[in-house]
């Protein structure tokens, strides 16, 4: 009767997901990765873990030396003292505009100090939108233009400089597009007016680490994607195809465009709005199904996993690899749900419940180990079972019906890893939560490429493995879609 408890667990999980919506977050946009981290509030000020901010960007380590907290990013040393408002980076004093905090070994800096502190470590420009907590590292901004076609029916065409995939929601008279992952910046003005009866205007706004475009309409509006996710066309309902649904699970979800190339209809620019490049007229594209992958960075929080070295817990490596895998999957047109995108702890049953609720095409669990070399790929050790068409699936053997597809994905991923000269082994394992996943599922365990354990945390090696895994999964897309 474990499935009954699983259902109860699910019922408890959703309020948790809802409450996390109000959590203060900062989003970082960079060429290496786009990621979101929780903000800690202490004595009325916003703080962020400096190690956590720098971790996805390169090789970083921290240690406590007496009363000081020392951080090393690539070749740059930083020295922080709890309670002090100044730090020393590259041998020079930097103002933190607030006290440095050391909590459970985590070095926390005031959020306002990021614009001065990060350029010292990164050696490049950083733009920080303080009120909305959006941090742009380098030239990563995604620009957009808005153009209204007044020929009946009226359509608003938003053209973006790179693919986007916002979460779309509607309320009477408004259509919201929330860009939680895209480094979207406003097109000069934040208020766009079109002087049209159906679509009178739009507003660009930023809040809690995300950007949002709110389009006002006198009729119910619908949005459709085209041009590989670079164009969103908004029209009154019934005149444009709907945006395919993106699963809402209460966890970080991003979804790149996976549509075939298409072009929006040409239109005359509205007054005061920069016109996009001229594009030939074409029919609106049909809605396209996007495959969803759930990426699960194992361990997290107090549950550190294996101690790979004295300074390197498994949970840190799995998160770094998971973030790289997300990027690689998205670049191949696969939407990604990350079960954790910060140092958070999730129970095994929680992971399985969240993954199953997302109804993914594939579930990928990331692990790391100091034993052996290369990569080991695991499928569940359950005996395969035919697809069940009953409304309930036994919790303990949820994976059994998807086992053949899981093994096919492993074969595909193994082939890509071998092609990249990575030693690979495919095994079955009695591993949770793999047994409880009701979709094709595999676990990827990274071991060092050679004898040096530190290579396990090498961004190049992690990227190589993430690329091969994503490539192997993408090759199986048709088969996985057919299963769904």
């Amino acid at each position, binding site marked *: 009767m474990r499935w009954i408890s699983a259902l109860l667990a699910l019922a408890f999980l959703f309020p948790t997901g809802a409450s996390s919506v109000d959590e203060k977050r900062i989003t970082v946009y960079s060429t290496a990765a786009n990621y979101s981290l929780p903000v800690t509030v202490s004595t009325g000020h916003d703080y962020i873990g400096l190690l956590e901010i720098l971790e996805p960007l390169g090789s970083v380590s921290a240690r406590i030396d007496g009363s000081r907290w020392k951080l090393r990013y690539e070749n740059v040393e930083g020295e922080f003292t709890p309670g002090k408002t100044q730090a020393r980076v590259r041998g020079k004093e930097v103002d933190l505009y607030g006290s440095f905090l050391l909590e459970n070994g985590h070095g926390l800096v005031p959020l306002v100090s990021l614009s001065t502190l990060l350029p010292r470590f990164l050696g490049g420009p950083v733009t920080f939108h303080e009120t909305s907590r959006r941090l742009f590292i380098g030239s990563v901004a995604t620009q957009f233009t808005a153009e209204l076609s007044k020929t009946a029916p009226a359509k608003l065409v938003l053209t973006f400089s790179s693919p986007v995939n916002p979460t779309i929601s509607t309320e009477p008279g408004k259509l919201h597009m929330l860009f939680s992952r895209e480094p979207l910046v406003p097109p000069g003005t934040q208020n766009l007016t079109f002087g049209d009866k159906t679509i009178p205007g739009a507003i660009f706004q930023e809040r809690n680490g995300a950007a949002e475009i709110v389009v006002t309409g006198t009729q119910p509006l619908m949005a459709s994607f085209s041009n590989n996710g670079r164009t969103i066309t908004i029209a009154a309902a019934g005149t444009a195809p709907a945006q395919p649904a993106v699963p809402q699970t209460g966890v970080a979800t991003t979804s790149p465009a996976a549509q075939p190339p298409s072009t929006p209809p040409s239109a005359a620019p509205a007054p005061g709005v920069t016109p996009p490049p001229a594009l030939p007229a074409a029919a609106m594209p049909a809605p396209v199904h996007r495959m969803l992958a759930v990426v699960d960075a194992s*361990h997290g929080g107090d*549950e550190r*996993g*294996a*101690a790979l070295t004295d300074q390197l817990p*498994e949970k840190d490596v799995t998160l770094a690899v998971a973030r790289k895998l997300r990027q690689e999957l998205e670049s191949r047109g696969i939407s990604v749900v990350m079960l954790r995108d910060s140092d958070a702890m999730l129970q*095994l049953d929680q992971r399985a419940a969240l993954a199953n609720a997302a109804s993914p095409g594939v579930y990928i669990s990331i*692990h790391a*180990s*100091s*034993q*052996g070399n290369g990569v*080991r790929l*695991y499928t569940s*050790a*359950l*005996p395969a079972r035919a697809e069940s068409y009953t409304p309930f699936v036994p919790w*303990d053997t949820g994976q059994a019906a998807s086992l053949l597809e899981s093994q096919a994905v492993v074969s595909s991923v193994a082939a890509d890893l071998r092609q990249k000269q990575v030693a690979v*082994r*495919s*095994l*079955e*394992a*009695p*591993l*949770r939560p793999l*047994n409880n996943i009701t979709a094709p599922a595999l*676990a990827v*365990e990274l071991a060092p490429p050679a004898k040096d354990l530190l290579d396990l945390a090498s961004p190049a090696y992690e990227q190589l493995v993430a690329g091969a895994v994503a490539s192997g999964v993408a090759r199986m897309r048709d088969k996985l879609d057919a299963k769904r």
Partner: protein
Amino acid sequence: MIPRHLIFGVVFMLAVVLGISVYMLRMRSRVVALPLAAVDTRPVAPPTVGATEEVTLYVADDAAGMLRPQSVRIPLPSGRQQRAEELLRALVNLYLEKSTSHPLPPGSEVRNVYLLEPGTAVIDTNGALADNHRSGILVEELTVTSLIQSLASNLGGINRVKILVEGKQRDTLAGHADLSDFYDVSAVVHMAEQMQSGQ
């Protein structure tokens, strides 16, 4: 006026209390300072007697990530349950040797093996084995597979095996290998075959 003998009596008793307190504090710090390694891990039961028999143990090798069948001669009692326990203790003892290919934490032991009909075995390990076991999918899988395969291949009729720690169920061995459910021996045999081939 307080009588003098009463004052002497109270002072004497206070001195005794103070002395005992100092003595107890010193004894307490000595107990705290006792190293964990000093825990007596010697078997409480007398050594098994009887004729030695050749059995095949499936011994994990971390370096190769493999299970290797190894024939050993060990004294085995006649009772089926005692045989199961001695078999697994012999296996764990191999992992406690200095030259082992798959080290288990010091003090690791199999407390009991319960054989239940029909075809069910329950292996009860001690806390030292699980609490301090190295974490990782492969290293944990090697331990689990080695125990179950060694047991099932030497004692016929076992179809499923459950592993407990100190008599209680736990989720995983050290964060990875599932201990929450029964292991199907046929699935473990397949896992062991994969691990022997080093595929």
